[in-house]
């Protein structure tokens, strides 16, 4: 089985024999996702893909009429792995609505908590969930030829991470029995302890509030955080080169692998970690304080940075239907005609959305999912932007924006540098993430590991700032506020896997409308009213098949890598019919790309 399959570069014949295959549920993600595909085995590529979610809960419905102060407690429960990102984003929106600016110390505590969340979540996803797609057992079952080659290939960075051959890394990633798998799992606990120090509990925090935090800033709090952080810093000095070696090997072993999960560069990042010296939570100054964030917000279209202004980003958001189980709101109430700066707000903007679920039979080609289609309006088009799984868009936008400069992290306009100081057993290291050639599966995964280092570097900065406040005696963590009768507001943040916004309308002191948009609706969205496929669908469609297995033993590993690179997080599913897959069309077809 040494023959590697060829990438699907042959010209496409109109006489295609398509086999329906689906994977439902897609495991090793959070939530329920189904991927339904039509595969052209002769040409070794995915011809069509539908992404579906099988769960509906109705947050926007049951939050109506509730006390707006409860929003962060409630919305945290949207997500079981990044609930705190929701809680944080909700408090940002509350701060804007209530007109309250937390003390600096509170902001540093939130930033330290959120940094720990990135460190934890990317780590567990990368090495305990997505990593399994690259482990020895999986590669052996899908591409034995590649495993064979991995056994013969030296790791260029063996000295940094201790694994001699690429196959040694793969073996260490085997679930539960692999040593690196277990180390990563243990590290995900250490980082969650750091998180709990700042935000109380994982994954639904207990100490976040509008106006600040309940965490008591003591010397012990920061000692406990810092000693753990330094262990993680040392860990990352091994992990970044380890992943570089693993991912570079795939490009080398499977020429054309850059096409897996590739799509047009359409990336969005809503910015992360506010700078308390700048952020006053007013809508009016949102452009200014957004640009002071420690991850710069931005939208990248075809490699160009279109904007870093959160007001532009806000006004461009559109929520479209098309393939989702909801009624439209063309006749619905317009809650917000103009933003606080006087800009018109569209009917399809989250402030004006009315959610009315319409459960029905699943019909691919018509309505097939509970996910809606968020898009971003740009030059007359509703762009299906994605988050690159979070890190890719964050690093890309931050690199191009050329704004972040905190010593530990420096944006250069084309790259991002991250500095990790000396630790117990390793000297100082500076990593540099360079803008890649493609927005594809491997680069989404690679960016994740670099962003873990970014989060650790940022946490070093935040810890210094927090301790300076503590030493100066500034221990106040909360400012009082009053809930207004009427208000509109928004919060922008980066959930671990990408853009996160909360839009609120308050009337008579209660929630009149609340629409959270986490990364997954952006990434997992179905075809919209224009027929534009969502990012998973788009990235999987035309993904070449490199797997060596014939259709009756097909695992869909390349599709899995494409989908998981986005770090899917839905309570959703991907189905697969193997062997007994239904043949849609059988016509005369040339036999291209013999399977190994």
């Amino acid at each position, binding site marked *: 089985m040494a023959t590697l399959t060829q990438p699907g570069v042959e010209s496409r014949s109109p006489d295609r024999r398509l086999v329906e295959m689906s994977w439902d549920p897609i495991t090793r993600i959070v939530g329920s996702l189904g991927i339904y595909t039509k595969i052209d085995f002769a040409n070794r590529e995915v011809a069509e893909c539908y992404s579906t979610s*099988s769960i509906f809960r109705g947050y926007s*419905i049951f939050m109506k009429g509730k006390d707006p102060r409860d929003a962060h407690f409630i919305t945290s429960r949207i*997500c079981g792995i990044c609930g705190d990102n929701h809680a944080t984003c909700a408090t940002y929106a509350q701060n804007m609505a209530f007109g309250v600016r937390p003390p600096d110390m509170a902001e540093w505590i939130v930033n330290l908590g959120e940094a720990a969340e990135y460190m934890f979540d990317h780590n567990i996803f990368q090495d305990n969930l997505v990593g399994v797609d690259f482990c020895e057992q999986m590669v052996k079952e899908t591409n034995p030829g590649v495993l064979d080659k991995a056994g013969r290939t030296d790791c260029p960075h063996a000295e940094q991470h201790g694994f001699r051959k690429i196959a040694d890394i793969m073996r260490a990633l085997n679930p539960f029995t692999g040593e690196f798998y277990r180390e990563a*799992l243990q590290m995900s606990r250490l980082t969650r302890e750091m998180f709990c120090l700042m935000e109380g509990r994982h994954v639904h925090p*207990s100490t976040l509030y509008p106006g*600040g935090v*309940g965490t008591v800033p003591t010397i012990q709090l920061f000692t406990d955080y810092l000693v753990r952080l330094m262990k993680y810093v040392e860990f990352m000095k091994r992990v970044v080169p380890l992943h570089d070696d693993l991912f570079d090997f795939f490009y080398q072993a499977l020429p054309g692998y850059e096409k897996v999960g590739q799509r047009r560069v359409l990336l969005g990042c809503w910015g992360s970690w506010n700078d308390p010296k700048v952020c006053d939570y007013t809508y009016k100054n949102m452009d200014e304080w957004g640009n002071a964030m420690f991850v710069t917000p931005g939208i990248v279209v075809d490699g160009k940075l279109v904007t870093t202004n959160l007001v532009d980003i806000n006004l461009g958001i559109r929520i479209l239907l098309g393939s989702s*189980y909801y009624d439209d709101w063309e006749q619905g109430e317009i809650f917000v005609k103009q933003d606080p700066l006087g800009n018109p707000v569209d009917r399809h903007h989250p402030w004006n959305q009315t959610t009315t679920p319409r459960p029905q*039979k699943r019909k691919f080609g018509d309505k097939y999912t509970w996910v809606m289609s968020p898009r971003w309006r740009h030059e007359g088009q509703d762009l299906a932007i994605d988050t690159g799984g979070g890190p890719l868009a964050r690093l890309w936008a931050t690199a191009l924006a050329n704004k972040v400069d905190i010593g530990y992290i420096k944006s250069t306009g084309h790259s991002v540098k991250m500095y990790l100081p000396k630790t117990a057993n390793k000297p100082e290291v500076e990593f540099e993430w360079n803008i890649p050639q493609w927005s594809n599966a491997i680069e989404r995964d690679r960016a994740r590991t670099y962003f873990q280092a970014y989060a650790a570097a940022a946490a070093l900065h935040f810890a210094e700032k927090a301790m300076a406040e503590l030493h100066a005696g500034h221990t106040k963590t909360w400012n009082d506020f009053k809930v207004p009768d009427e208000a509109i507001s928004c919060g922008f943040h980066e959930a671990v896997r990408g853009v996160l916004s909360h839009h609120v309308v308050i009337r008579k002191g209660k929630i009149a409308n609340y629409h959270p948009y986490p990364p997954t609706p952006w990434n997992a969205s179905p075809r919209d009213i224009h027929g534009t496929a969502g990012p998973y669908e788009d990235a999987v469609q035309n993904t070449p098949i490199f797997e060596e297995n014939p259709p009756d033993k097909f695992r869909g590993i390349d599709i899995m890598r494409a989908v998981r690179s986005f770090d899917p997080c839905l*309570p959703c599913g991907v189905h697969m019919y193997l062997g007994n897959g239904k043949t849609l069309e059988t016509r005369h077809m040339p036999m291209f790309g013999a399977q190994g």
Partner: protein
Amino acid sequence: MAANTLPYGRKTQRPPAVKEVHVLWITAGLSCDGDSVSITAATQPSIEDVLLGAIPGLPKVHLHNPVLAYEVGDDFMKAWYEADAGRLDPFVLVVEGSIPNEKVKNEGYWAALGTDPASGQPVTTCEWINRLAPKALAVVGAGTCATYGGIHAMQGNPTGCMGLNDFLGWDWKSKAGLPIVNVPGCPVQPDNFMETLLYLLYQVAGLAPMIPLDDRGRPKWLFGATVHEGCDRGGYYEQGQFTKEYGQPECLVRLGCWGPVVNCNVTKRGWMAGIGGCPNVGGICIGCTMPGFPDKFMPFMDEPPGAKISSDTATVYGTAIRALRHFTNDTANKETKWRHKGTKLTTGYQPAHIS
């Protein structure tokens, strides 16, 4: 020692009554998967402790959980169909997420897992529970959604969702005679869940008697005490010291903490490795382990209506007590007077023979 000699101490080891057990974990209730994520944080025991056989006497455990599974799609679903066909025995069914009411609408689904090969439509979570619960050795609810409905069962919700006991019945018993085991928490405290699972495995192995549960299906040793009874801010309560501002060390009751009336051990156990939690670290208790969560505790950031009388009383009593303690504390903070330099010994030492 000869290679074939058995160690003497091996006689302490007994094979479990059941050799292997499967854990079928359905996350496709209305959930956030937070309970699955939570258990990956557990260390007492950890998930790998259980799966790799680190604890003596237990059966071999096969875990089928979508967040951690190696298999995908149909490969993953195989265990579900096997269990339904009676070929995966014995198994423990863990349910995560509230159970929607699929009967309140005409068609479609609120929550589903996998696809029915015949109809091409999703198989609802309710149907899976109906199929599998009668065949399970035990049914365990992980987290407040699965146990009592939780956040998704909030007033005004469109799905009519509920907890396992509401769905299967409060008198429901498994074929092995176990009532539904409820481990609430939003999310479930990591070690609380893993310890409950461990207990059940001991029980399956024949090493422990029937799991002790209270009338809400909760393990008694975990949920028998209130948050307040374990709270390290309880002393402030007693002394009538209530903060009106977040970020202060005193008792949080006036800010909205429900600790005095909520069954939960988080103040004793912390969140993980003894770190974090709720009131101990400055977070009000919002009652997330309780059957009445969330509605009976909202709005969360107001003082509980019933708390006023007791905290007012504590203020009166506590202020007096605190003054007295302050006095005693001052004394306790002073060393005894015979610790001094100089030539004179004033400790009271009087030897029998002075030379």
